[in-house]
């Protein structure tokens, strides 16, 4: 044996290995079983969470096997690769014989196969052989797109055939799988899937991605002009709506309101309404400035100091600092609502900070505290703005040039499955012969794919033909 025939041999073996349906069953079941893992172990969470959940050893094992992102792991991709090769090799292997069946050089019917068919139906007709042939021929040629009449020893053989092309259906199904896998690959190589939060009125031009992948820079700005949230009476969200403008070179190129099922698509980039949130307002304090009046009890001296929220005020005689922490429109105080009050904190040199409240423009209120100083707050300048709740809109921004390929795959899958499952290649033979003075009609049909279906067709056909003859 020469070396080349050896390699030929192993190449041949490899080819046969990949052409086998057994392999495809193994791969399909492996994909099904391994896919379960990712539905039990949450995917793409932070490593912290996994550390908490799993022991050190288990974490290391899972991490090396990419279990935490298993659908993008090398071994899952390897299985998909095997599936692709399996389908391609298998299809090539069978295509030539299928092709010969669909486009035969010389169409021929083998009468012996029809005579052996189990679904044969036979009856004797009234007319002569010629008459029966003339009645059934036009009827049959209408129903079958290939129709031939041959004469036999004692009569005629009528052959009909249709739906030969449906044998291609299964290639459409298998091609669709390849298209989907290819489309998915194009998407992950040339697309991205990111998100961005934009406060109302602001704009961004770069998109964050998951899993610490680098940011994506857009060649336009996304501006959120407005965000609206509507609720049902029950308080469930009814609609999230963002008014977006895309801006390039300071010019608005496109404007659209997007809601959850209605995204904005522009130059291959899709912007989806995904979530929303409230921005903690920095403007909860509706006052700007006020005067703090400190009266020293011992000396009766009065100090007036201009102040603002959160700016420390030195107390006289180095005795500590006073901070006005916050302002409230109303504070419950001993069972009543006290309007316009300030929350204060006194940090003494030593000891615990002291917390108390001072209502605006009430010079005698602090006497009750029995401290060394009496504090009051006057000349409050209210800023007359009611702070509006500000929202940010959460947008998902994606680009996936693989989508058209995948969609063509979807179409092929549906059409291919329909054709393969519910249409089939049918061959039919009507034998008309004289049998001891009578005319005998025999109908039989062959279908490789769908024998019960063919049987039903023969039964129906022969009933109709019996009426005709």
């Amino acid at each position: 044996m020469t070396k080349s025939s050896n390699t030929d041999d192993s190449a041949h073996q490899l080819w046969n290995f990949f052409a086998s349906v057994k392999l495809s069953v193994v791969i399909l079941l492996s994909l099904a079983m391994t896919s379960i893992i990712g539905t039990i172990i949450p995917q793409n969470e932070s490593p912290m969470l996994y550390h908490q959940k799993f022991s050190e050893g288990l974490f290391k094992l899972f991490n090396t096997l990419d279990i935490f992102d298993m659908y993008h792991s090398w071994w899952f991709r390897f299985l998909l690769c095997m599936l692709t090769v399996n389908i391609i090799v298998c299809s090539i292997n069978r295509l030539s014989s299928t092709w010969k069946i669909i486009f035969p050089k010389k169409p021929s019917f083998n009468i012996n196969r029809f005579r052996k068919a189990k679904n044969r139906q036979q009856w004797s007709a009234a007319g002569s052989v010629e008459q029966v042939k003339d009645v059934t021929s036009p009827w049959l040629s209408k129903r079958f797109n290939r129709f031939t009449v041959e004469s036999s020893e004692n009569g005629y053989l009528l052959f009909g055939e249709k739906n030969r092309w449906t044998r291609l259906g299964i290639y459409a199904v298998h091609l669709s799988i390849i298209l989907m896998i290819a489309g998915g690959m194009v998407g992950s190589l040339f697309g991205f899937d990111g998100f961005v939060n934009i406060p109302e009125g602001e704009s961004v031009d770069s998109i964050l991605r998951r899993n610490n992948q680098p940011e994506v820079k857009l060649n336009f700005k996304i501006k959120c002009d407005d965000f609206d949230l509507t609720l049902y009476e029950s308080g469930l969200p009814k609609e999230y709506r963002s008014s977006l403008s895309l801006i390039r070179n300071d010019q608005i190129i496109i404007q659209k309101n997007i809601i959850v099922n209605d995204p904005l698509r522009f130059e291959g980039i899709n912007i989806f309404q995904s979530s929303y949130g409230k921005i903690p307002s920095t403007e909860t304090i509706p006052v700007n400035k006020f005067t703090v009046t400190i009266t020293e009890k011992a000396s009766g001296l009065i100090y007036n100091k201009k102040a603002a929220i959160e700016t420390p005020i030195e107390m006289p005689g180095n005795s500590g600092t006073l901070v006005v922490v916050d302002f409230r429109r109303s504070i419950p105080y001993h069972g009543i609502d006290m309007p316009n009050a300030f929350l204060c904190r006194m940090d003494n040199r030593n000891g615990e900070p002291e917390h108390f409240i001072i209502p605006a423009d009430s010079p005698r209120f602090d006497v009750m505290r029995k401290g060394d100083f009496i504090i009051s707050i006057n000349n409050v300048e209210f800023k007359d703005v009611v702070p509006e709740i500000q929202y940010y809109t959460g947008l998902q921004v994606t680009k996936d040039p693989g989508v058209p390929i995948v969609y063509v795959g979807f179409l092929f899958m549906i059409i291919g499955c329909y054709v393969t499952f519910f249409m089939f290649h049918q061959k039919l033979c009507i034998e008309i012969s004289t049998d001891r003075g009578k005319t005998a009609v025999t109908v039989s049909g062959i279908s490789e794919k769908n024998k019960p279906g063919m049987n039903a067709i023969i039964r129906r056909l022969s009933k109709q033909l019996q009426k005709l003859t």
Partner: protein
Amino acid sequence: MTSSEIFSIITFVYGLATLLYVFSWIFKKPLPGKIATAVTIVAVLGNLTGIILRWIESYQMGIGHAPLSNLYESLIFFAMTIALTHLFIEYRYKLRFVGMVASPIPLLAMAYASLPKVNDAIQPLIPALQSNWLITHVMTCFVGYAAFAIAFGISIMFLLKPSEGGAPSGIVSRIPDFDILDDLTHQMVMFGFLFLSIGIITGAVWANQAWGRYWGWDPKETWSLITWLIYASLLHARLMRDWKGKKIAVLSCVGFLAVIFTYFGVNLLPGLHSYQ
């Protein structure tokens, strides 16, 4: 009458149909079988009326949407598709025995829907579900599930039937031939496979419309893919000579377990699809 009242009556009608099918099977009488078919037709019509009424009721409440948005509504739709599919098989293949295995399933679905833990209120649609794809997606998925459910019932019969040569005894002997069972399982799996494929595809197109990705490995998506892969293996296993009959029946049962998990079990896992 309200839709919920109709549904509770229908539950009993499905129960009656099941009883009649069992009766006709055990006593080998064709008449109760014929009545059972008629009762099932009544149940399906009632079921459909209930669904339409619930649709109208939702509009009267000002939150109009197709009644396919929560577990309760899906169970009721599921019951109807199964009953319809099995009527279709009866008509098409003239096989009444299918009623034996198929008719308890709508009964179970309706009974489960009436448990107190299943919320039967008409709820407004959350933004993610406000799409025309909802109807196509849910309907095609459930037609697929219904076909798989019936394939499952037939496979169980296949596994219960004593193998050839064994002494036929009792009602088990009345199970039709292996060939018929095998062929019917195959027909149902093909039917289910086509519809599950369309269901997954419409789901993917919808997800791409709503969230910008056609596939996200969410647990429900993944489990529907697992189901689909199991049935794809079944279709291929039939092409191998040594994988006939029993092994196919077992695969069909495994496939249906995956369907059940996709439908109910996934609610135990986190994700977008979980019905409350």
